[in-house]
C-alpha cells in the first residue's frame, strides 16, 4: 500500500545562503532513488514536507519548477526546530521529502490570460517556480503579458537575485523589484508592494493576479487590486497554516471546512471571502 507519510530519501546536493542575514537558505535535493523523482511529479504552487529524521517535518513550498530536472529546490527560513536544524546540515547529508502536497496554481485554467505575479519577502518561492515554468519556450506563448512585482525590506533580503536580474533583461516579462526604503546605488523601485502594485499593475481585463506574501502585504495589496477592477475570482492566493500530516487528516490547518494542506494552499479571493479568516 502506498504510504503518504513515508518520505522519499534525498541527499542535500547544495546549500546556498540567500539573504545577508543568513536566515534563508536554499536547499537543492537529489533523490536517492531515481524512480522517486518520477513519483514526485509536481506543479508550481504545490508544497512538500521536508522531513529530517529525528527532528520532524516542515511544510515548505517547492521553489524549483517541474521543468528543472534532476533536483528539487526549497528555500527555508530559520524559524523553528526543524528549520534551525536544517540550517546546520551540510551538502551530502541525507534527509527526506514527502509530497508533492496541496493543489498547484491553476495555471492550466489561466491559459490565454495576462498574469500579474506579486510576491513579498521570502514567500516568493512558489512564484519563482511559477515564473521559471512559464518562461519555458514551449509554455510562454500560451499566456499573455506577464508582470512580476517583488518586494523585500532591503536589497539583502531579496531572494534569487541572479534569476530576477536575468528575467529583467527579457522582453517577455515585466519585472518590478522594490525595497521599503531608499539605499545608495539601488537601481530599482522603492516603496511597499501595494503602492508599486497600484502604479504598475496591468488593467484587469483578461488578467489574473497570483499573490504570495506575508499577511500584512496581502491585506494591503488586495484592496489595490480590487480598486483596479480585479474580480475576487481572479485574485489567487496561497495560504499558510500550521500543518503536520499534509494530507487533510490531522486536523489543524483548516480554514472552515477546507484544509489548507489538502484543499489549498491555493485559493481564490472569492473562495476566501466565504471562509473564516483563521489563517
Amino acid at each position: 500500500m502506498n504510504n503518504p507519510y513515508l518520505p522519499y530519501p534525498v541527499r542535500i546536493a547544495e546549500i546556498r545562503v540567500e539573504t545577508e542575514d543568513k536566515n534563508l537558505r536554499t536547499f537543492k535535493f537529489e533523490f536517492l532513488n531515481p524512480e522517486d523523482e518520477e513519483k514526485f511529479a509536481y506543479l508550481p504552487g504545490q508544497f512538500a514536507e521536508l522531513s529530517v529524521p529525528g527532528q520532524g517535518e516542515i511544510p515548505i513550498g517547492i521553489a524549483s519548477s517541474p521543468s528543472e530536472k534532476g533536483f528539487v529546490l526549497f528555500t527555508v527560513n530559520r524559524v523553528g526546530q526543524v528549520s534551525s536544524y536544517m540550517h546546520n546540515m551540510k551538502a551530502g547529508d541525507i534527509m527526506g521529502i514527502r509530497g508533492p502536497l496541496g493543489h498547484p496554481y491553476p495555471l492550466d485554467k489561466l491559459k490565454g490570460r495576462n498574469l500579474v505575479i506579486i510576491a513579498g519577502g521570502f514567500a516568493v518561492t512558489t512564484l519563482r517556480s511559477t515564473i521559471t515554468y512559464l518562461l519555458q519556450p514551449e509554455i510562454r506563448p500560451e499566456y499573455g503579458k506577464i508582470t512580476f512585482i517583488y518586494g523585500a525590506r532591503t536589497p539583502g533580503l531579496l531572494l534569487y537575485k541572479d534569476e530576477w536580474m536575468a528575467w529583467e533583461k527579457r522582453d517577455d516579462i515585466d519585472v518590478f523589484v522594490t525595497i521599503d526604503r531608499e539605499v545608495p546605488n539601488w537601481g530599482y523601485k522603492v516603496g511597499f508592494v501595494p503602492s508599486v502594485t497600484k502604479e504598475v499593475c496591468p488593467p484587469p481585463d483578461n488578467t489574473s493576479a497570483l499573490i504570495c506574501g506575508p499577511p500584512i502585504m496581502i491585506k494591503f495589496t488586495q484592496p489595490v487590486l480590487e480598486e483596479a477592477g480585479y474580480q475576487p475570482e481572479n485574485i489567487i492566493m496561497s495560504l499558510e497554516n500550521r500543518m503536520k500530516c499534509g494530507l487533510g487528516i490531522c486536523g489543524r490547518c483548516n480554514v472552515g471546512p477546507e484544509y489548507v494542506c489538502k484543499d489549498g494552499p491555493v485559493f481564490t479571493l472569492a473562495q476566501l471571502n466565504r471562509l473564516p479568516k483563521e489563517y
Partner: protein
Amino acid sequence: MSEYIIKQSALADFFKSLANGRRLLSPQGVGDKCKLEETAPEKVSLDFTNTHMSPKSLLFPQTERLMAFHNEHDKPNGYVFQSALDSGEPTVVFGIRPCDARGLSIANKVFQNDRFTDPYWKGKFDRTVFIGLACDAPLPQCFCAAMGGSPFGESGLDVLAFRQTDGLGFKALTDKGTELLKAAGATEADLAGEIKSLEAKAIESQGVKPNYQPIDNLDLMDLFKDPHWEATAENCLNCGVCTFFCPTCHCFDIQDENSERGGVRMRNWDTCMSWLFTVHGTGHNPRPTKTERVRQRFMHKLKYIPLKQDGVRGCTGCGRCVVMCPVNIDIRSVALKMAQTAPTPA
C-alpha cells in the same frame, strides 16, 4: 441483505465461530473500566451500557509508531525512514454501539479522503468486522436520534445485532457480515417488522428530539460570526477531554523521538482545544483564545463535517463529552444556540 436469528442455546457456539481464526473483541469491565478487549468466546457479555472511551483507539491508537530510522551515516539506509506498517490479525468486534460505529464511519471518510488514504488506519479498518449491538435501552445522556442516527443505526457496521427474548436477532449489512453469519450457522428469518418496532421504542425513550436542522441551512459565516460564541466558551477549561472521548475526533500530532541508535516517528492524539495546535512558527496563532478553539470544535462537528460528508453530522450523540466535560459544556445546548443564529439578510 437479510435477517437471521441465533437462539440463546446456540450463542456460545456463535461466539466460538466468530473467534475462529480471528481476534474477538468485545466490551469488558464495568463503569470507567469498560473497554473493548480481546475476549474468550465464553466471556462475551450482553450486559454493558457502552465502553467508557470511544472505540476509535482500535483503528487509531492514542500513540502509534509510523516509521523508524537508524542514525548510522555510513550504512546505506542510515537516516532513511522505514515504514512501521504491520499486517495485524483479522479481528471481529462484537458489541460496538451504533453511535460509535457511525463515529468510525465518519472518521473513516477523513482517513480515506478524496485525495489520500491513511494506510495505518486502512489496514486495521479492512481487517476488522464490526458487529454492532443495538441499544434497546439508551442512557439518559444519549441523543443519537437527534443527531441523525438511531439506537438501531447501521452506519459503519457489517452486522447489526439486537436482543430477542430467546437469543439474538441479526441484520446483515455487508457481504462480510453475511458470510460471518452463515458460517456461524445463523438461521434466516424475517425480522424487519420486529426491528422497526424495537427501533421506534428505543428512539421514543430518548424523549423529544431537539431540532438542530436550522444549522444545516444556515450560512457558514453567519454561524461562525454569531455573538454567542464568547459566552459559550467562557467556562471552557480548554482541557481536551471532549476530544479524547469523542468517537469522531481524529486530530493528531506527529512527533519524532530519538534514541541512541536511531529514532521513531509517531503520531499522538492531539486536541483543537490546545493553544499549541495551530500556532505558527512566527508566533501568530489563527485561533488564539478559547473562544476560537471552542467555536472550531462545534463548527467542525456540526457544520464543517456535514458540508464535506453529504450532510452527515460529526456528532453521533454518544453523550460522552456531555457527561465527561468538567464544566458541563453540553453540545446539545450549543447546537440549539447555533440553530437559533439569525441569518444575515441577503
